[in-house]
């Protein structure tokens, strides 16, 4: 009976914006942002990605996002660094 979850993902070539950040070619993808969203929150992990075998390394987290929809419906206040989210990490995995 768990609330349904929607997954999305987005690739990046580097940690900071560059000319091909919006649409990196497969060979240039180094980081993948995996998102899990429910009615209540959106949780995203930006992790190391190997384009040669499409594998993600969740041991190497570049950055994280966590938005609680109740009090932040526009997703402007990222609380990833100020809350514990181990259970979300497990759930995403």
């Amino acid at each position, binding site marked *: *009976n768990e*609330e*349904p*979850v*929607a*997954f*999305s*993902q*987005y*690739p*990046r070539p*580097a*940690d*900071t*914006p*560059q*000319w*091909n*950040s*919006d*649409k990196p070619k497969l060979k240039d993808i180094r*980081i993948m*942002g995996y*998102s899990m*969203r*429910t*009615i209540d929150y*959106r949780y*995203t992990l*930006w992790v190391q990605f190997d384009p040669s075998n499409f594998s993600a390394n969740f041991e190497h987290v*570049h*950055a*994280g*996002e966590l938005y609680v929809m109740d009090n932040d419906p*526009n*997703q*402007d*206040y*990222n*609380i*990833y*660094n100020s809350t514990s989210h181990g259970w979300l990490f497990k759930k995403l995995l």
Partner: protein
Amino acid sequence: DGMNVLFIIVDDLRPVLGCYGDKLVKSPNIDQLASQSMVFSNAYAQARHHPALRFLLLLESSCRKLFHHAQYFKENGYVTLSVGKVFHPGVSSNYSDDYPYSWSIPPFHPSAEKHENDKTCRGKDGKLYANLVCPVNVTEMPGGTLPDIQSTEEAIRLLNIMKTNRQKFFLAVGYHKPHIPLRYPQEFLKLYPLENITLAPDPWVPKRLPSVAYNPWMDIRQRDDVEALNVSFPYGPLPDDFQRQIRQSYYAAVSYLDVQIGLLLNALDNVGLSNNTIVVFTADHGWSLGEHGEWAKYSNFDVATRVPLMFYVPGMTAPSVSQGAGAFPYLDPFSHTGGSAPQGQSKKVVELVSLFPTLAELAGLQVPPACPETSFGVVLCTEGTSIVRYFSISEGKVQEGREGCDDTDRCS
């Protein structure tokens, strides 16, 4: 014996629609469709391209890597037809729109499509540019038309043919707008005076947004009008006034699209097929309209991934239309007042990969099995699950989606 399917997919349409609560937009025809449909208010796309239209299939015999669910309908006795921007061109559709596997006849592409990025936007100096914001005089356009106008004409022509040949059909119609460039008939600007257009509610880059998460909206920077603003990379911002012009043109493009949808659905009425055709309305992406200091769709934000999703199923989401009556009279956004609420609404979070199994179930076809962990060797499977279970019906009306259905005799 299986209903027809009219599958409408719109490029980069976020739920800026009356039936999704937007107060500014004029979308009477899409709202009218919603008033007879099951509407999902939390539907999300998965990645950079149309995930819902495809799932991986490795047919050893033909070594094809992609299988589109149109083929599944084709193999189940449907005449399958494609009009406009349905499949992404290139490898994802076998460089052939996946014809003849997916489609019964060669897919239609509007001839005006090739001018999409030409210099057809008249600047203040009277010269022509390839702008992002591009209201046009359609009579001045190459061929005196625009791609979506041609797509609607072709889809109506095919509906008239399907009326006579009485075979069940799966007709997919893909609309280009409001994908950039925001090129639409200039008269739609009258619906959205610039003084009524505000900035996004949160037009700044959030303090604690990781830099990796930010998308620097490269595709709009290459348009002549944006390039001329000399905006700094990567954070800009665009001048407030121009931000409002982009938002104004996105809304105008949505109303232009609404007219196309209205003409198409009214044609379904006119050929007498509204009472045995399932209509699906969705989009492949959202689009950021300045929220978080971003434009375009290259992020994981909800504004870039949330899409409209609704299913009209005659006899299920709405009473069957009696012979001769119509379900979709055309509504003119320039004169129509008053909105219409969705017939049924579900707030359940759903994914576009559920579209195909849901459609298969609604059409009475065998729902393909879920894909295993590694599915490369699997001939046919789907990544999503059917969401028909969220359609709940009582007294012939669809209401707030509830899991399952109390009265099993009446469950679909």
